[in-house]
């Protein structure tokens, strides 16, 4: 185990690590500048638990209805050897009729052991990559692996890799509806970046047998059409997502340097007592969190479990009001500074001269206009 890993394990403490998954890997691209998040993920800290323990529980949960619907739809699409999926692939993508072979990789010999499933996945997919004929078409729940910041993360895609015209394609099954050809663009984006993670992992798996080129950078999104349960397929070009992911993954070695920057004592140990309550007091965890520099922006509220903590910390900053607000305030970091410069009470320095000038004009105009009101 490398020195860095040792340090990270030490930060996480007695509890087992929370390995990366497609979501957390995708999240690397949603706020890549945030050291706090990078380190917590690298150390495999349970962020929701940490946030709650530090007194700032994450503002979001998942509705039981959404989960049920998601599972039901996936099950329906995959039922009877993926009968519905086969229809879509045949009708919309010209999958030849003989291509119906189905391999279930969610269980291997009635066991769900990750190593077993992964080796089985590798075995079947490399065989498929090797030979053209009789090599399988649909692979249900293959278990892929990707190295993230020096650690191996197993990816358990709720998806199937299938072969069409000699290439592997990733299929992502989502239960949000596409109505008259339009779906929630945020959810589609999330699906695209997640699928891109799978594409990367699949390429890494096949690279050993020189088959990386066999994985298409076009993935297929399966979702319900209009208001019905009928599935439809859409093509997603994930080349952009792949570039961004590759870059962010390649940057992760900076974690090593980051870790060095922090005192050895720093710990996010969430070891719990019998009642399931972490032993360490909230204040201690909060102090530890505060030692990791964050890059808070309001967008975090939708994506990161620690957001409430960071927001509270960032209260006085212009960034907390929104990235454009900060930009419009001339990049001044603190609200009070901005107002001080605007009112002229604060003497601008070299950094803030320009901002001061604009802020004062703005202040003047607001005052004038409000005055005009009477």
């Amino acid at each position, binding site marked *: 185990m490398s020195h860095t890993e040792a340090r990270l394990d030490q930060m996480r403490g007695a509890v087992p690590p929370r390995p990366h998954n497609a979501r957390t890997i995708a999240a690397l691209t949603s706020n890549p500048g945030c050291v706090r998040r990078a380190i917590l993920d690298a150390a495999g800290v349970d962020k929701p638990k940490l946030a709650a323990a530090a007194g700032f529980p994450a*503002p*979001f*949960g*998942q*509705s*039981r*209805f*959404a*989960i*049920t*619907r*998601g599972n039901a739809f996936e099950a329906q699409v995959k039922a009877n050897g993926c009968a519905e999926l086969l229809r879509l692939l045949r009708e919309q993508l010209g999958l030849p009729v003989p291509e119906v072979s189905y391999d279930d990789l969610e269980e291997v010999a009635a066991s769900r052991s990750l190593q077993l499933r992964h080796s089985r996945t590798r075995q079947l997919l490399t065989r498929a990559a090797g030979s053209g004929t009789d090599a399988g078409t649909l692979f249900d729940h293959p278990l892929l692996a990707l190295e993230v910041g020096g650690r191996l993360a197993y990816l358990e895609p709720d998806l199937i890799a299938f072969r069409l015209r000699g290439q592997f394609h990733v299929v992502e099954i989502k*239960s*949000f*509806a596409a*109505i*008259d*050809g339009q779906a929630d663009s945020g959810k589609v984006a999330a699906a695209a970046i997640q699928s891109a993670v799978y594409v990367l992992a699949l390429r890494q798996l096949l690279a050993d047998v020189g088959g990386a080129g066999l994985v298409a950078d076009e993935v297929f999104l399966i979702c*319900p059409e*209009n*208001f*019905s*349960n*009928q599935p439809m397929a859409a093509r997603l070009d994930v080349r952009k997502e792949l570039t961004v992911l590759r870059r962010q993954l390649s940057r992760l070695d900076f974690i090593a340097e980051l870790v060095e920057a922090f005192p050895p004592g720093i710990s996010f140990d969430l070891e719990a007592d019998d009642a399931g309550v972490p032993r360490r007091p909230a204040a201690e965890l909060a102090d530890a969190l505060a030692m990791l520099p964050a890059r808070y922006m*309001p*967008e975090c*509220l*939708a994506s990161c479990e620690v957001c409430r903590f960071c927001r509270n910390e960032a209260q006085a900053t*212009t960034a*907390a*009001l*929104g990235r*454009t*607000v*900060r930009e*419009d*305030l*001339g990049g001044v970091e603190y*609200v*009070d500074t*901005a*107002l001080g410069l*605007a009112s002229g009470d604060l003497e601008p320095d070299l950094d803030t001269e320009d901002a001061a000038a*604009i*802020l004062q*004009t*703005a*202040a003047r*105009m*607001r005052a*004038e*206009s*409000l005055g*005009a*009101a009477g």
Partner: protein
Amino acid sequence: MSTLTALARAQARAGGEAQPLALVRHLHIAERPLVFIPLALAGEANAPLAAMIGDEADSPRLLVVNQPRNRDERFAFAAELARVVVPYLEGFATQAEDVASGGGETRPRFRYAPQVFMPSRASIGFARLLGRSTRFRRTDGEYAVDAAVPVLGRWLSFLAERAEHPGSCLLVAATEVLSLHWASGQSGLEDLNLAALMAWIEPPGGLTCLQAAAAAEDPLQWPPAGPATDPGFDNEVLAPLIDAYGRADGAAALQRAEAALARALSAQLLPTWGLMWRSIALLRALPAGGHVGKRWDEDRAAFTSYVSYLRDGDGLPQPRRDGAVAAARRLSWLERAQASYAAQRAFDDPLAMAEFRMSGEAFAGRVVAAEPDRLDTSGRRRTLRPRITVETTDPLTVETGTELRAVTRLTQRATIVSVEPGGPGEPIRVVIELAGGMGRSLVAEPGTVPETGEWLCYCSLPLGYQPVTDFPATNETPWTHGGPPVPALPADEDAVEDWS
């Protein structure tokens, strides 16, 4: 966003209360608006769960879908909703007045029009999709639905389309209009939470804005305004109640289960209901901007023409998507509406104008010199062209030759003759030539030419009428755009499309 609004947010943050972004109200508020707050079932495609609706603050009507996954119950909900919404809308389609429509023609226009308030853009999106899922339905044959359902669908679709139209207020999102008039001390994303936004503008008694905004994020005190519900509510309250409803056998048990559901859902909706009426009252209290009436006239015209479309002719439902020509035409409408909405707001409201003074498209200053009786002798006949010099410290970007109008003198054309930049710290001197609005003679009528010392605000945004751009007829859609489309008639699959 702009430095002005950013500054307002910063001030709100520091001062602990919302700051005005407008001195006048930029939307019409109807005497009897309809408040409509829908909730959707998580995970499903726009499946209605409940709605609170009504045009009187003290008598909300609660509609509930006891088993949201049941197709029939959904259509029952739609029918019930229709029986509230459609009469409300058509209630305004009674008294008409005649208005000139150019060329001596007159067109009838209803005196009044409906106005629907929903909490947010997301709610409007729900209404749009509810319209989409109901407008194609058939009232006969297989999968027949209540006669009111497809009518509701058409109306919701109409309103949702209208809501994309800049400056229209037939269908309004509360959070949107509120943040048009007030800057909170939080981010725009947080403003999407109606309770949090209202907390900054009018905190409930005893709380500071900051405390109120914090409380507004606790779904137990302030349930989300919808259409999405709080997952905690889904898991801990709603799911058990729906299961209980499913298990209940016997009339009494069923009644109990229904009552429990209704109780839980109205508890989720009532807080938002209150917020909605408070925000309407807040807006109503502001004085209306000068052009608000004009835009409301356009809304009434739009309402009138859709009513007559439904009444005479087969009143086909709106197509699923715009065709090539329809899309292009709509885009040009929207762009023109956008431009005039922005200009109208600026001329109505010094704070809105300030945005353009910041960007240099407008400027304000004092008249330092005036030649009220200057004549232009270059042409065949002499014309009255007074000139004035205005000193301003605004950062203007307008150049020589630009057409301007003064906020206080809309009938008078003004053209920039020269701009003399003052030295550092010195004001800029702008020489302006005036035409029109001064009477017929060669001598300006008194008061028609600004006098020395007068404070004026000139703006280069075109306020006047913009010519309508014309497009080919739909059946002449050119080959570059796929050629003439097959006319969009509602097909069987539209009518029977399952909703599950």
